[in-house]
């Protein structure tokens, strides 16, 4: 029963700590510092946020996606075939991303996530999970002016992301996680997602995960469990009804559950008792050795200090739950 995170982590702290990345980006945009100098700050902040996750007691961390402007454009800018357009709202949040526009054949250029992962792992005493945005989510949140066929676009994205995933696995990433929140709103994409994952994860032997958030799993849950990944990540906070759906099905013995039990979108801090109660409930459905405990989504919706408090509380709650249930970490 390990603790982990879903993905991103707030990029800047609050006063009195300096907002170094914000300042560096502003200076870079004004032409006052070079791309290399900005990259150095991104590296330093990445190390900082890994340390914060580790200090909080999280077992499997990420690089905090510090270099990512958002889940879509970080990938889209590094593949061939995309332009980047104006701001659109990200799902039901009050955050916005620039919409990728597919204007040509989607192709892989050179690997980038593997560099990020290597750097993070070199600076982390804990295993670092690699994150990649999934092809359904990328396709659904982009504007397609080239393929004009959702299925072909998704497969092209899967083929372009496959070398990235393979490079991550070969470099030694312990877990490669595919983020697919949009599948919850597009159950018709499930067969397509299955094919896309087969392409992306072909020959990949490390542990894999598919994470979702914000939405109801009601219409997709049994099929999610049949996808060719080790772990399915589910947000149990935004949609309390997801608890019931979870309870209505037998959890397969060859899968793990990534249970989002700490609210990544609200500053209210859960109590240790609440977390223990959630874990007790979960272990009636999934045995502890096949359970990851994590926030309900990435943590960038919270101020940095609150994000760390949430992780600290998650680790405390997990510790108390292990003791209460008599299980090992």
């Amino acid at each position, binding site marked *: 029963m390990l603790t982990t995170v879903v993905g991103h982590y707030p990029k*800047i702290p*609050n006063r009195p700590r300096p907002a170094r990345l914000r300042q560096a980006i502003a200076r870079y945009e004004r032409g006052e510092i070079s791309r290399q100098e900005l990259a150095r700050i991104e590296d330093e902040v990445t190390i900082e946020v890994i340390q914060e996750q580790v200090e909080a007691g999280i077992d499997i961390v990420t690089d905090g996606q510090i270099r990512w402007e958002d889940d879509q454009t970080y990938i889209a800018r590094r593949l061939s075939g995309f332009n980047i357009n104006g701001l659109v*709202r990200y799902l039901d949040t*009050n955050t*916005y991303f*620039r919409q990728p526009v597919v204007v040509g054949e989607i192709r892989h250029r050179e690997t980038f996530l593997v560099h990020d992962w290597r750097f993070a792992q070199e600076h982390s005493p804990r295993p670092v999970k690699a994150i990649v945005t999934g092809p359904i989510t990328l396709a659904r949140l982009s504007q397609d002016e080239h393929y004009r066929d959702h299925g072909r676009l998704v497969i092209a994205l899967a083929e372009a992301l496959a070398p990235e995933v393979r490079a991550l696995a070969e470099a030694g990433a312990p877990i490669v996680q595919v983020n697919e929140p949009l599948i919850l709103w597009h159950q018709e994409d499930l067969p397509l997602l299955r094919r896309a994952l087969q392409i992306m994860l072909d020959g990949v032997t490390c542990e894999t995960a598919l994470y979702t958030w914000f939405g109801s799993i009601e219409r997709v849950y049994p099929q999610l469990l049949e996808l060719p990944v080790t772990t399915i990540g589910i947000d149990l906070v935004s949609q309390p009804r997801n608890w019931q759906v979870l309870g209505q099905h037998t959890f397969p013995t060859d899968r793990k559950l990534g249970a989002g039990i700490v609210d990544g979108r*609200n500053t*209210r801090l859960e109590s240790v008792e609440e977390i223990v109660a959630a874990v007790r409930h979960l272990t009636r459905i999934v045995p502890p050795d096949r359970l990851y405990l994590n926030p309900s989504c990435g943590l*960038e919706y919270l101020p*940095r200090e609150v994000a760390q408090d949430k992780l600290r509380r998650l680790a405390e709650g997990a510790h108390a739950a292990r003791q209460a249930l008599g299980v090992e970490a």
Partner: protein
Amino acid sequence: MREALLTSAVGSYPKPDYLVRARNAYAQGKLDVQELRQLERKATEYWVRVQERVGLDVLVHGEQERGDMVAYFAGEPGGVVIEGMKLGGLVRSYGNRYYHKPIIAGKLRWPGPMTVDMWRFTQSLTDRPVKGMLTGPYTMVEWSFNEYYPTREEAVMDMALVIREEVKALVAAGCRYIQIDEPAIHTRPEEDFDMAVEAFRRVVEGIDCEFHTHICYGPIEKIYPDVLRLPVRQIHLAFKNTGFQYLKLLEEHPWPSDKVLGVGVTDVHNHKVESVEEVVEDMKRVLKLLPPEQVWVLPDCGLKTRTPEEAEAKLRVMVEGVQRLKRELGLD
């Protein structure tokens, strides 16, 4: 006939440099509140004169005292605090932009008049009516963290009571038009739309005043025609930014005769100033669907992201376009 194609603005205007500096100094404790208030009023008067010389019919005070439309009410520096609210840490909204997201940390209560002094001051400067400007209960809650209420609905309904008290105070001070913005209302329409409408009803019910609302950027198609259930005289939408595509919605479901449509005719996120001809042509498309008595003309949204010169130029083009249109239609 006088009441056809009235012009107004949505809310905010850019802050002059001296006020931006003063707000920063105040936030750092280097300026006292009287000096800040004095500069806010100086900037407000500037915008009143701009609106008068451009020729708007109904003015706004320009929100020179506000940073963010929600955080202002939650204790941002120089702002006011609704009881139960406080300012949280920085959260990124996009790119390299961050804002202090408010927190609902206790029972929400009206702290006494929050916007009345500024409204009264602004109205004292001019013979033209000045709108009261408030943020709606759904948006106030949706754009805050909630650490106190068990459900979003309970928070929204208590927030409605707070906003209602402020509305009453504005009306008591003599305010005839109050605009209550709900730009978050389309965040999750399937789940929350009825709740948002009910909260709005609780804000305005039984109060004698002309209410307007402004809703911007988002999937308007998901809330139209439901949005017509909002108990307001006028609904304002950002037409220009979306290339007047909302007209299709009005073709499919006609605008009701008891509501005024506020039409955004200048894009507030574009440095380019529209031409008078563009305004005239765009408005002619609107007037194929609605009589001029049922239409007001405004910018798409608050102009605070433009320079003061751009903001004035955009207002001027808008008013000139409306004047030309009125002449053509024989309305002047």
